[in-house]
């Protein structure tokens, strides 16, 4: 069982040449086995934050700490980022190191995420949703203590997204990693997260730290969830900056205009 707490303190993150910082004065902790959703409008630095936690971006004034130094990280990027020259099974196997039974494990992981009979296919022969599943299999292959998910359901059609969300939650129940889940959809966050951190429009700051007290399993269409969604937006009008795009379906440009 994974039991890794995550401590994040970011005083300031500014990209070279940018007019204003991407993130500023942002601090939070995530309890072991908790799913923490990061919700905010585009440009709020969600992906930047995830890259910093993943250790991909070290050019930051701040710290990321785990309470175990050997914490294993699994990550799903916003695009699947599979190696196009490796078969599906080899893509999963790639992260497994020199395991003798790596091939068998890779195949089992692909079954776990609901993929049959595509082990020897190349990524470009798969649909977007299936590629996302392979990326998920790869992310959990390392038995992560910390699972970083960057918009894992974005640009999938509704049924595909719903199935992938169920798979994700089933695997989380099994492995209990600490999860950071980036999304711009409030409903999606309410459906999966224990806690939601709302980020402001850039520079990303922490607006609200909200605990989702809904029993699992949750139905994203359930009235209780919808009510919480509406209540949340009423109680925190300052979230509207980020949430207007979700509720009314406006594009970013229209929302700011």
């Amino acid at each position: 069982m994974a039991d890794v707490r995550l401590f994040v303190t970011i005083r300031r993150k500014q990209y070279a040449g940018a007019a204003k910082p991407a993130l500023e004065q942002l601090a939070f902790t995530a309890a072991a086995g908790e799913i923490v959703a990061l919700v905010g409008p585009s440009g709020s630095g969600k992906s930047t934050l995830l890259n910093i936690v993943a250790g991909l971006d070290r050019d930051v004034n701040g710290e990321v700490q785990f309470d175990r130094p050997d914490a294993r990280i699994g990550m799903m990027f916003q695009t699947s980022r599979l190696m196009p020259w490796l078969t599906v099974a080899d893509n999963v196997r790639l992260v497994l190191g020199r395991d003798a039974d790596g091939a068998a494990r890779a195949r089992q992981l692909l079954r776990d995420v609901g993929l049959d009979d595509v082990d020897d296919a190349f990524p470009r022969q798969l649909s977007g949703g299936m590629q996302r599943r392979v990326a998920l299999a790869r992310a959990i292959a390392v038995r992560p203590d910390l699972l970083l998910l960057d918009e894992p359901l974005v640009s999938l059609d509704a049924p595909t997204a719903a199935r992938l969300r169920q798979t994700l939650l089933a695997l989380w129940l099994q492995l209990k990693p600490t999860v950071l889940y980036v999304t711009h959809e409030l409903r999606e966050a309410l459906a999966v997260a224990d806690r939601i951190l709302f980020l402001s429009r850039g520079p990303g700051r922490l607006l609200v730290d909200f605990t989702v007290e809904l029993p699992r399993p949750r139905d994203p269409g359930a009235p209780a969830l919808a009510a919480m969604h509406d209540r949340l937006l009423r109680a925190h009008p300052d979230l509207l900056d980020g949430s207007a795009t979700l509720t009314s379906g406006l594009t970013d440009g229209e929302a700011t205009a």
Partner: protein
Amino acid sequence: MTATRSISVDAWMRGLSLLGALAAWQIVASLGDQSLLPTPATVLASMGHYLANGELLYHLGITLARVTASFLLAMAIGTTLGILMGRSRWVDTALDGILILGLNIPALVVAVLCYIWFGLGDVAAVIAVALNKIPTVVVTVREGARAVDHGLLDVATVFKLSRIRTLLRVYLPQLYPYLMGAARSGLALVWKIVLVVELIGRSNGIGFQIGTYFQFFDITSILAYTLAFACTVVIIEEAGLRPIDRRLTRWRT
């Protein structure tokens, strides 16, 4: 189905165009002065003669050895430099001037200088050929290194892949098209330069033989050696490079 059929159609087309060239040669030769352009049959007979007495295989073998050595040397050094220059602006700026110089120095100058500095031996010959080819490999591979997808390298970082695994399974596959291109054009260049280098400074190999027959104005022998040489190039392309290329780009289809 379609893939196999188009491959065999391709093979037919290739064969037909070669046959056409052969027919044209036959026609021109039979119309003109045969001491200047012998017929294909005469050349084939001459090639058979040199094959039988072992002379052709001896010189062809020596030339092949020189081609192989300088090709591998140039690919290794050129790939390393190309990756370094593609990755780092600093290295790129530092070496760019030398690269342009290297691209433009005539092959003959490099060969002559190598023979003077390293002596009239195979070491000088191989270095001279490699030096001529390295710059073109660098240019191609640098292009590939600049186009590398950092998103995929991030995957390797997050999942803590070992350096060697990252290189072999994440980094180099992105360079394969560029490496194949460099190998193809490079091999063609190496063939040509090896013959020149042999002509001016070695006492064996195809280039030396062609030089010798040139002094006797023995056009039949020159063409016999050229034909043997051309056959070798085709065999290497069909049996070596093309299958490798097909294997490495299997995932694209």
